[in-house]
């Protein structure tokens, strides 16, 4: 039986899969055709995501059973508020980044950019929509294999070396993922997320040892994807060496790990009799270390791309601090910060790419300023304000929400101190980099360096669009926060999920 949405629920996964394949088969040699079809598909994806989110916003949970197999025997796609939000965020970010890649000419520096991009989108949307843990693994592999290709796009020694590291780390992560799923299946006998959650509530307290091992293994997998300290070593080199627009798209990749943490440890393995506070106890110290180390990296970087990469790491730290509370307020603050930090980090990566395009190098040293230094400098300023979490942009509200959500716990003092001190560190690091890049120009370097032309208007417009997104998030803060509150509340209420996924299917159970 189809859900209330009919077959539309699988459209966000099918659309990029079909378009990606078409691009490889029929448009291999024609960049213009690739661009037209790829942008049209991503724009359609945005429209689909808006529509699906509007459907899910009311609080109803939509289920699509693949091949009409009954849950838990078949795989189900589940659309709730969280999945809808992630879909929309991914689609919007993808559209902007793709237009930037076209505007800056990145997509012609190697083959198959647009096909890989579509497969990346397919993996991301699939991971957000699936309601089956093993299917989540499969979509993780889809998005990873596309990301390997995108990361190596354009080639070059450092980029390939970084890609090999990234691939190896993620292969080890995938092995761990399978081990976790095996352990969970061995102890629970199911891999459907809602069915797992339902069985967890009926698990005798003396039989929880194995499932706790499985849950922690799974948390390690998500921690690798989210790059939490001490599993972060792959991130700085990877992001710093990735092509600019790809690094911007990867701003959502660490968030996939966090999505996994939010999804599994609120809904499937909530803190309680069976799990205790095991997951939160492990995540909190890791998040604190991630935040501090990330901002230290921002202060110590010697090039702008690497600084943005460390900034991405720090944002994961802040976000995990909120999520690791596993309260409704914490998850809500985390979701808000997730929306904000994805856009802000992506904007910083795009600005870094703009700078690289006109200075020839991202090194923090006095060099030629390059064309349009005023406009790019203004973009840098806005992105830096966003990343550091200063008013008036949305990061400030996000940090405020995180502080509020962590009030009155055992860790409050440490968390507040870490967030406030690291904010100052971020301001110092970002201000230092901005001063060097935009204000101290050496005339000698300007005389010898080739003067790059102005960036195409499309690349500039896309960077501006991300910053406009931050402004919009700030202006619409009230409604968005009410929505993240509702999302967090929905995740803490298992009943409707069980009802939608397990009970309301004809002839099942």
């Amino acid at each position, binding site marked *: 039986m189809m859900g209330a949405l009919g077959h539309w629920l699988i459209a966000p996964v099918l659309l990029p899969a079909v378009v990606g394949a078409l691009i490889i088969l029929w448009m291999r040699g024609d960049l213009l055709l690739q661009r037209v079809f790829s942008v049209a598909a991503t724009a359609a994806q945005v429209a689909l995501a808006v529509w699906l989110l509007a459907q899910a916003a009311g609080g109803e949970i939509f289920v699509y059973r693949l091949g009409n197999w009954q849950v838990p025997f078949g795989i189900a796609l589940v659309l709730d508020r969280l999945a809808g939000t992630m879909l929309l965020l991914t689609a919007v970010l993808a559209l902007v980044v793709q237009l930037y890649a076209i505007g800056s000419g990145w997509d012609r520096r190697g083959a198959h950019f647009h096909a890989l991009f579509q497969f990346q989108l397919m993996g991301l949307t699939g991971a957000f929509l699936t309601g089956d843990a093993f299917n989540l693994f499969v979509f993780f592999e889809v998005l990873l294999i596309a990301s390997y290709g995108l990361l190596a796009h354009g080639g070059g020694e450092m980029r390939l070396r970084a890609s090999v*590291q990234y691939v190896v780390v993620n292969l080890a992560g995938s092995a761990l993922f399978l081990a976790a799923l095996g352990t969970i299946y061995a102890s629970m006998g199911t891999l459907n997320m809602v069915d797992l959650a339902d069985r967890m509530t009926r698990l005798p307290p003396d039989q929880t040892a194995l499932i706790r091992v499985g849950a922690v293994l799974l948390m390690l997998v998500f921690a690798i994807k989210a790059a939490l300290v001490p599993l972060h070593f792959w991130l700085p080199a990877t992001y710093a060496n990735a092509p600019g627009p790809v690094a911007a798209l990867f701003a959502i990749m660490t968030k996939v790990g966090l999505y996994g943490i939010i999804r599994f440890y609120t809904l499937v393995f909530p803190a309680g009799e069976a799990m205790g506070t095991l997951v939160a106890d492990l995540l909190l110290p890791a998040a604190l270390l991630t935040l501090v180390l990330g901002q230290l990296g921002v202060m110590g970087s010697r090039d702008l791309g690497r600084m943005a990469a460390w900034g991405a790491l720090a944002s994961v730290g802040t976000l995990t601090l909120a999520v690791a509370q596993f309260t409704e307020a914490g998850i809500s603050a985390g979701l808000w910060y997730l929306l904000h930090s994805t856009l802000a980090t992506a904007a910083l990566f795009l600005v870094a790419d703009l700078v690289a395009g006109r200075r020839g190098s991202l090194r923090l040293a006095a060099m030629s300023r390059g064309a349009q230094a005023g406009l790019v400098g203004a973009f840098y300023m806005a992105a830096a304000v966003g990343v550091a979490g200063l008013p008036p942009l949305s990061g400030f509200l996000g940090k405020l929400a995180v502080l509020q959500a962590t009030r009155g716990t055992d860790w409050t003092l440490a968390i507040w101190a870490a967030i406030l001190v690291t904010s100052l560190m971020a301001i110092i690091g970002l201000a230092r980099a901005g001063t060097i890049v935009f204000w101290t120009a050496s005339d000698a370097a300007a005389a010898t360096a080739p003067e790059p032309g102005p960036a195409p208007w499309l690349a500039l417009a896309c960077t501006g669009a991300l910053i406009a997104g931050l402004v919009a998030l700030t202006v619409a803060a009230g409604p968005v926060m009410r929505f993240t509150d509702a999302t967090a509340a929905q995740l803490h209420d298992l009943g409707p999920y069980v009802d939608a996924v397990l009970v309301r299917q004809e002839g099942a159970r």
Partner: protein
Amino acid sequence: MELLVASAIGILTAAAVYLILRRRSFAVVLGMTMLSYAINLFLFSTGRLVRGAPPVLSDGAPAYTDPLPQALVLTAIVIGFGMTAVVVMMALGAFVEGGDDRIDMPSRDAGGAGE
């Protein structure tokens, strides 16, 4: 049989971890392959080890073995095989571009000595 399977998984994993921690890409690729063997064996055993029982309905079968882990292993084998091919290609590319097959990044990557 449990002892045999368990120790096979353990030895494969130990060897894989040792190889992955080497700094040369060839050893790392071998290690990844071994790790995926170990994981596949482990997945296979998650449905409990049953001897001589069919996984699908058949007449007169006294017992069945769990078919789901077998399907999972099949998926994992396919994905693992594809991923090994990808990592080999990537490592070859890095070897051709960089001239050596070290896995770790050279210090000039972070803007250190040498740039």
